[in-house]
């Protein structure tokens, strides 16, 4: 089966009912997307399917066929997505295991809503657990990234015109 991940086409040879998570981790050796619960309850495996956040552990590979899939490895080329920069600036991660999923949920939020309120942040991030307790820093980093994000969007638009 063909999968389009981070702009590249990959061939995977797995059963149709295989969750995308295991195709990514086992077959394609892309281990940035993490296994946390296998039941859509923790968000550690959050990826984007056609720009929307999805839990890779609950997405059968058959459902991902033909879709544009983005994983943490494709969030930016060099780790300079505004959220990644804000994560570094606020020193967000502790153990770091949930952070791929946190970043992917946050990135989908900002892509769809560049000026989220605190409530909207809570709501968008409510599916992502962090046992280390980095919630206050995640929230601060998202709020901080909003400014960079909007500034860089603005620049891009102006550059395009």
């Amino acid at each position, binding site marked *: 089966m063909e999968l389009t991940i981070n702009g590249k086409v990959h061939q995977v040879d*797995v*059963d149709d*009912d*295989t*969750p995308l998570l*295991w195709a990514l*981790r*086992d*077959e394609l*050796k*892309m*281990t*940035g*997307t*993490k*296994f*946390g*619960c*296998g*039941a859509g*309850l*923790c968000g*550690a495996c959050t990826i984007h399917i056609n720009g929307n956040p999805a839990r890779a552990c609950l997405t059968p590979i058959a459902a991902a066929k033909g879709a544009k899939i983005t*994983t*943490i*490895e494709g*969030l*930016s080329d060099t*780790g300079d997505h505004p959220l*990644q920069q804000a*994560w*570094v600036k606020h*020193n*967000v*991660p*502790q*153990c*770091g*295991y*949930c*952070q*791929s999923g946190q*970043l992917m949920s946050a990135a989908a939020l900002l892509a769809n809503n560049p000026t989220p309120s605190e409530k909207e*942040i*809570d*709501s968008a*991030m*409510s599916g*992502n*657990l*962090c*046992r*280390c*307790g*980095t*919630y*206050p*820093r*995640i*929230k601060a980093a998202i709020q901080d990234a909003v400014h960079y994000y909007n500034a860089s969007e603005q620049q891009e638009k102006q550059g395009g015109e």
Partner: protein
Amino acid sequence: MTDNTNAISLVDRRRFLKLAGVSSSGLILGATLPNFQPAWADIAGTAAKDKSAAPLNLFVSIAKDNTVSIVCHRSEMGQGIRTGLPQVVADELEADWDLVEVVQGLGDKRYGNQNTDGSRSIRNFYTTMRTMGASARTMLEQAAAQLWSVPASECQARKHRVHHSASNRSASFGELAELAATQKVPAEDTLVLKTPTNFNYIGKPVATYDTPAIVQGKGVFGQDVILEDMLIASIERAPVLGSKVAAVDDSAARKISGVVAIENMDGGIEPPLFHPLAGVAVIATNTWAAMKARRALDIEWTDTSHASHDSAPFIETLKQRVQQPGKVVTKYGDVASSLASAAYKHSATYSVPYLAHASMEPPSATAVVKDDHCEIWACVQVPQATQQHVANALGLTPEQIKVNVTLLGGGFGRKSKPDFAVEAALLAKKMQRPVKVVWSREDDIRHDYFHAAAASHFESAMDDDGQVTGWQQRTAFPTISGTFANGVEHPSNGELSLGFADIPFDIPHRQCETAPAEYEARIGWLRSVSNIQNAFAVCSFADELAHLRNRKPDEFLLELIGEDRHIDPNQGDFEYGNHGASLKDFPLDTARLKQVLAVTAAKADLTQKGDHVQKAGEGWGIAVHRSFLSYVGIATKVAVENGRVAIKEMHCVADVGLAVNPDRVESQMEGSMVFGMSLALMGGINMEKGAVTNSNFHDYPLLRMQQSPKMSVTLMGTEHAPAGVGEPGVPPVAPSITNAIFAACGERIRDLPVNKHLQLV
């Protein structure tokens, strides 16, 4: 140290090169590091990759390209130790942090203790790391002195170069590396450590070393290890302690494509130690096939004596037992007569359920076994215990087991038990191929080494003036000792040293007792261990007394603590653990506790004189507790409305002594507040017929972002020696919440979790 340094070094370098392709961890060799003493090693092979690095001691090597490699021999699980310890070395070494490469140390007894637990990496290795850095710095200065034919005393290392100011010469560390490696290792007593005013990194919020990799999904955790030709194992384990496989029908499972083998795992051993549980392992070419086939297994388990264990009635039984006379641990004055003659008496019984660690990364280990050698990659807190237990299981020696420690996706004590690494080793031996054992979330929650369910009972006597004159306390919980020996029913001195027999109150008549509790499930350390139930009970009971006597809780607590003094809780057979430190170096200091209490109380708007409700439905609660040699206070504001409770604010005040990396100390306190909220509000493992009924985050919930309140962290006492950080923030959280709930609505919650009594917003 030895005459044949070069010979040994060469042999080691060859071995290193052979292994270098396998792991980014360098081969670590050097002299013995007994306990916490520095190794005056003149050999080591911490060199990274194929750079020609010059090892200066067990922890430091410098390459010609100027890279300084510093070994972190402790496990990183989010506490920031891969930054904190190297940052101390780099400071004394006068290295430029931007040129530092952190190398994860293998399991090796030459490092001394590598058990990353007990909140002790910094406090036990701070001086060692400084000494390592100073030793390497001195050797670089000696090398420069030799190069320029000047006295070493005139050469000074500064920011990755050695300078000779009289002749205006300088050389980089890289240029001096090879010559430095030939220098005589300085004797410990000749080393001059930096004065704190000259620190470059110690006490500064150095950015976490692994963060740039983590935000790009490049961190390698136990679950992420991939080896050539590797198989994946998923194991269905015995649901009840002591149970074994009686019969298995694996015909359906074998039909699933990708399945390579199905193997019975021996087990059912008691005491459980770190042995794998009995079970049936499905080994497949991919994780999904292994998990799917496992669900198709039909297994019959043998009966065990633990199959009648139901946790809810068990906790009720413990609560009954702690209300009866027990076994005396310590005794001051005459409690019985103080209670008999009291003007006022009060008693209360508290309970905390079994709890699971639920680190975001479920346990995982990968192993390769060839002849008389085994190599493991695993997210373990205890690389040397992993060597030992894998060696025992394979019939090898610990030296034949190489343990690579990956990043840990959380540990909290679960990954101190390397049962999952033993599983991987046994299966890799059977398959004669690399095998990764992947634990699922359900496996993690059902087959944990649980925090013990606990009951505590307190009785107090007060005189006419409201002074507490008598204090009786009793506890019962299945002891961690039961994991290592059969038939132990009373807590160990170590457990009783965690906020039970060391209560810092000045009460003339006091008695501490224990009651028995059966061991029915694997029990282990969970972040702050028995301090959880002890701080909850003690800080709740003190708050109850304050309100009964119409006193402000903080003023009442100040009186209970009494004069500034150092307390020695040792008495009779009770030997106080003091978290492994001497009372001389780390006294139980009431002055520090009172200072933390005062700052904590100032964060809160505490209830006056029994007036429970400040503003309709809102209330503040505080709690202070000393553990892991640190003093932490929590002030919490809650709102209770129509039987629903929300945490509105939480403030942490922590005296952990010198904070080597204040940003990571703050993050640990933030994390401790979240961890404490999860356990206080919604934590609880339930067992029926000996088996855990919870399975995943829907029925073992953790705090989510929208429930996480505004928080602050205040650090104080930084003039003291560094003390514990990872755990001491947890214990006071639960009682600060339940005390706040009482202040808000008058409901006293004595049985955790809170959501058994009030709904959570």
